[in-house]
């Protein structure tokens, strides 16, 4: 998402690294590059101005002058300032209410309905609590249908009364939630313009009547300079408690993330990173700043992996790897766990220096993994344990069974063989990383 911004900053910073001393002249180019990169990333003009002048001031300060490696320190200044700009520390959701009430608001098409489904699924998974979705978009055609479908695919109940007054619906939903022991009530509202006085008044009334702990603005990360008018408009009327940035799985540089907190002091709480209903992540300013600068995000990667990979299974796989008994059954389990991690492109981007290794633009076809699974599943249990018995006629049968060519079967077997060899090296203690 932020690759291009990160790359430009990197190349600008790289030039400075070569200098023994930082002067006003030799950072001139870098400062201009940074300015253009941020503007092209849709960072608000005023924020860019403040950012560049503050970086420049600190870079020319005494501390840097005394430092042995001014280039490294310059990178640190830029990263610290970026983190600061992104909001310092992450802010958790306030879920103190019983039930906790969360209201999602935003412009048309920002992704409220999809996000509310993701948020409910996230809360259910993280806290093992029971969420209720409330359909209060009574304007857009089929909006209620959409929420019902989202609820259905997640197995989360949706409260709706058709096209009635949103305040009325919400009040009834709250009573219903209390009666039936729901922990979270998430209210989906209609998309509206921040300058639509009538509809903004409706939101204000709704807020007054149901007193939600969280009023979250759902914001499209592709937004340009107008984002600040939208945030300010909603914030003035509703006193927002947080922002959820959506569509960050696109190639937008998402500079709006930099503007939101800085200009309004409203924290970004979540980011939407895929179209699937599990594609919501808590926003972490420091990680995001590191990611912008291309420093990678190994912490996110590790966390993500521990979350979905069954530890016991992983342990037993590791043991088998070490003892050299790793067979195709284990291989199949591993591919399934990898699939649970979500799109592999996202994982690759978290690896430090990914953009330098050219990994940021790698496209991985999820079908490839499906093909591998299909091939293994077409083998008999015996063949999976003893792949060495697979010769020509078995290969033909397997290929026919999974609809792949014999070459594909060969390729998989060769890959598996290589993997085993590599594992042996690992256990012998002279492991060499492939990169």
């Amino acid at each position, binding site marked *: 998402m932020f690759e291009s911004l990160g790359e430009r900053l990197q190349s600008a910073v790289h030039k400075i690294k070569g200098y023994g001393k930082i002067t006003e002249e030799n950072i001139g180019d870098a400062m201009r590059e940074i300015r253009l990169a941020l503007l092209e990333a849709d960072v608000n003009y005023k924020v860019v101005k403040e950012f560049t002048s503050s970086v420049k001031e600190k870079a020319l300060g005494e501390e840097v002058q005394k430092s042995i490696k001014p280039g490294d320190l310059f990178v640190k200044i830029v990263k610290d300032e970026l983190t600061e700009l992104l909001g310092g520390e992450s802010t958790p959701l306030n879920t103190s209410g019983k039930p906790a009430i969360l209201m999602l608001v935003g412009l*048309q098409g920002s992704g409220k309905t999809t996000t509310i489904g993701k948020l409910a699924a996230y809360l259910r998974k993280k806290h093992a609590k029971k969420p209720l979705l409330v359909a209060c978009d009574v304007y857009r055609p089929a909006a209620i249908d959409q929420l019902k479908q989202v609820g259905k695919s997640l197995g989360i109940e949706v409260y709706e009364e058709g096209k009635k007054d949103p305040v009325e619906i919400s009040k009834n939903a709250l009573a219903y939630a209390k009666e039936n022991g729901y922990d979270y009530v998430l209210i989906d509202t209609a998309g509206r*313009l921040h300058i639509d006085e009538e509809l903004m008044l409706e939101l204000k009334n709704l807020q007054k009547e149901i007193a939600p702990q969280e009023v979250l603005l759902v914001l*499209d990360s*592709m937004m*340009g*300079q107008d984002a600040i008018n939208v945030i300010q408009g909603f914030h003035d009327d509703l006193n927002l408690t947080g922002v959820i940035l959506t569509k960050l799985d*696109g*190639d937008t540089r998402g500079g709006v993330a930099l503007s939101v907190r800085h200009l309004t002091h409203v924290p970004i709480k979540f980011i939407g990173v895929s179209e699937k209903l599990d594609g919501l992540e808590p926003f972490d300013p420091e990680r995001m700043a590191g990611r912008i600068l291309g420093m990678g995000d190994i912490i996110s990667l590790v966390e993500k992996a521990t979350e979905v990979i069954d530890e016991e299974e992983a342990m037993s796989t590791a043991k088998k790897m070490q003892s050299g008994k790793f067979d195709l059954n284990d291989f199949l389990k591993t591919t399934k766990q990898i699939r649970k991690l979500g799109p592999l492109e996202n994982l690759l981007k978290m690896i430090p220096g990914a953009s330098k290794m050219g990994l940021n633009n790698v496209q991985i076809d999820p079908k490839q993994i499906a093909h591998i699974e299909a091939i293994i599943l077409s083998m008999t249990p015996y063949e999976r344990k003893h792949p060495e018995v697979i010769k020509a006629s078995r290969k033909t049968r397997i290929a026919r069974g999974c609809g792949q060519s014999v070459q594909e079967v060969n390729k998989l077997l060769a890959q598996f063989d290589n993997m085993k060899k590599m594992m042996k090296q690992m256990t012998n203690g002279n492991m060499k990383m492939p990169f």
Partner: protein
Amino acid sequence: MGFFSKIKNVFQNEEKNKNQDVKKEVQVYEKGLTKTRENFVSRLASLTKNHKKIDEDYFDELEEILIMADIGVNTVMEFMDRLRARVRKEKIESPEDLKEVIVDELFIIYVHDDVLVNKIQYAKEGPTVLLFVGVNGVGKTTTIGKLAHQQVEAGKKVLLVAADTFRAGAVEQLKEWAKRIGADCTYKDSGSDPASVVYDGLQKAKNENYDVVLIDTAGRLQNKVNLMKELEKINRVIGSFIENAPHETLLVLDATTGQNGISQAKAFQEITNITGIVLTKLDGTAKGGIVLAIKEEVGLPVKYIGLGETKEDLQVFDIEKYIYGLFKDMM
């Protein structure tokens, strides 16, 4: 006479002629763009007022105004260079005189020497096929509803094709639009292959002599390879079923979009033959300035603008009126 005074005259003459239709159209533009204009124009006006002479401060502030309108960063930088050159060459001294040059230059960015056609290109015979593409949440389905309404009003037999089988509720949304405006709708269960819905729709259109077919597609981010391949397939199915179809492929673009708009235009242009842009949500405070950069860098013109949520809120784009709407208070 600069472009600025030219359009000023055009509109004054139109008003003199009491050409009610045109006047009404201009008013809709003005109404929709009021918020857009207020910011932009009041800033340009105060820029002229606050600066007695043209100096670096003046250029800095002008650059900020243009960037804030989301006109592409490259476009603005080149624009500023050209403007500086003209100021030097033509020895322009007062900000008041430069105002006209600014509008003139903006107009040149958009128009170049192109002849811009905003009308829909209809098929000579058989159904005219219009394909709508874009990223998520830009307003594709709503735009189709509005444009189909205009076609129905013009007495055409109109078919809507619900090929967004991915997003929850998308099929229902299009069905409701069809009902609202009195058009027919081809659809399948959500989750079906969109290309097969398109195939069914086109077959129905041919057999039952529809005049216009509007095809809704799922929103897709332009960097999603598989989804872009799916769109390529849909496009291919249309082309193999009806010659020269789709007759128009319209990229729907949200006016609040920033620099990413250029990437969207480029990526969708690569997959399909985009014939124009529908710029939606221009009734907010966003200026949609990125269309100037898209026209300059990718060569795609705007054909329609969306100014609200009702079925009447779609207008044919007219660059002169657009600029007139933006600069009215300055004249």
